């Protein structure tokens, strides 16, 4: 039982789990089964999914309270975030390899589907750089402000996804769980702020 618990709580094992998609994708590419251009979608999608997962944990906790599995996930939220960033870097690296030269990358940098991706990556940099205890301590209250940059970064990521394919379906499907939880939280708060009128005392 102790072994099971230590496996469940092992952070390196969790990181290994988060690295499984990258390992599968990289092996496919290395073996020649996946073209460089076909590495863009899976790496980008994995990044976006991990980002959404990281963003879901807090609101879910607010919605249904601190369940054991949510606490377990919350303790690993940073890992989700850092993994999302790592996949975004991998995604960008494969984009660069696929394009082959800087001139071609610059030529399409202002296309709607591309600048949004670059902007999201830039916003993710300070998020990733401050995803450690030392930054948390030294930035104090400012740390939260930096981490809130995940919202514009997520918006840009989803726009990048939708615009690069000229198709909103996949991006919206990934936004849906987050939007649903937010909506329920907002509705609940509104209902709390505007209590239903009390029945008159019948005077």
């Amino acid at each position, binding site marked *: 039982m102790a072994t099971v618990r230590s496996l469940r709580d092992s952070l390196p094992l969790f990181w290994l789990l988060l690295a499984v998609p990258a390992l*599968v994708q990289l092996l496919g590419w290395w073996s020649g089964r996946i073209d460089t251009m076909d590495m863009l979608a899976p790496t980008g999608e994995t990044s976006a999914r991990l980002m959404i997962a990281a963003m879901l944990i807090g609101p879910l906790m607010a919605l249904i309270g601190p369940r054991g599995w949510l606490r377990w996930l919350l303790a690993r939220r940073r890992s989700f975030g850092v993994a999302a960033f790592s996949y975004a870097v991998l995604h960008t690296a494969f984009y660069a390899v696929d394009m082959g030269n800087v001139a071609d990358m610059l030529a399409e940098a202002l296309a709607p589907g591309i600048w949004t991706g670059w902007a999201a990556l830039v916003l993710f940099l300070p998020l990733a750089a401050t995803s450690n205890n030392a930054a948390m301590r030294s930035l104090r209250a400012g740390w939260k402000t930096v981490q809130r940059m995940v919202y514009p970064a997520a918006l840009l990521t989803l726009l990048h996804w939708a615009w690069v394919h000229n*198709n909103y379906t996949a991006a919206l499907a990934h936004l849906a769980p987050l939007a649903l939880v937010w909506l329920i939280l907002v509705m609940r708060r509104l209902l709390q702020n505007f209590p239903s009128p009390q029945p008159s005392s019948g005077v």
Partner: protein
Amino acid sequence: MRIITFAVLAAAGIAAISATPAAATGAIKCQAGPQSGWKTKEALTAMLVKEGWTVRKAKVDGGCYEVYGTTPQGERVEAYFHPVSLDKLYVARRGEVLFRKAGY
């Protein structure tokens, strides 16, 4: 033991999702009849190369030929061609539509 089973299943699930090839984008549909009446992918590629394109990949999508490549103007695009006439139907650069033939 349950946790290990769960971890293995989760890893397998993640691996399966990540190994699934990207679905057809299906930006354009062609009603071009049976493939026996189509021109070959090689004929399309040869025509495009002659026009100055670089073709990186050509495949069938939505009953059309879908080509990933670089236009003579140097734009990295996804383009659709009619498999019988080899007419250019649609050209998009990273999702930004540069050309769309009337009716498609």
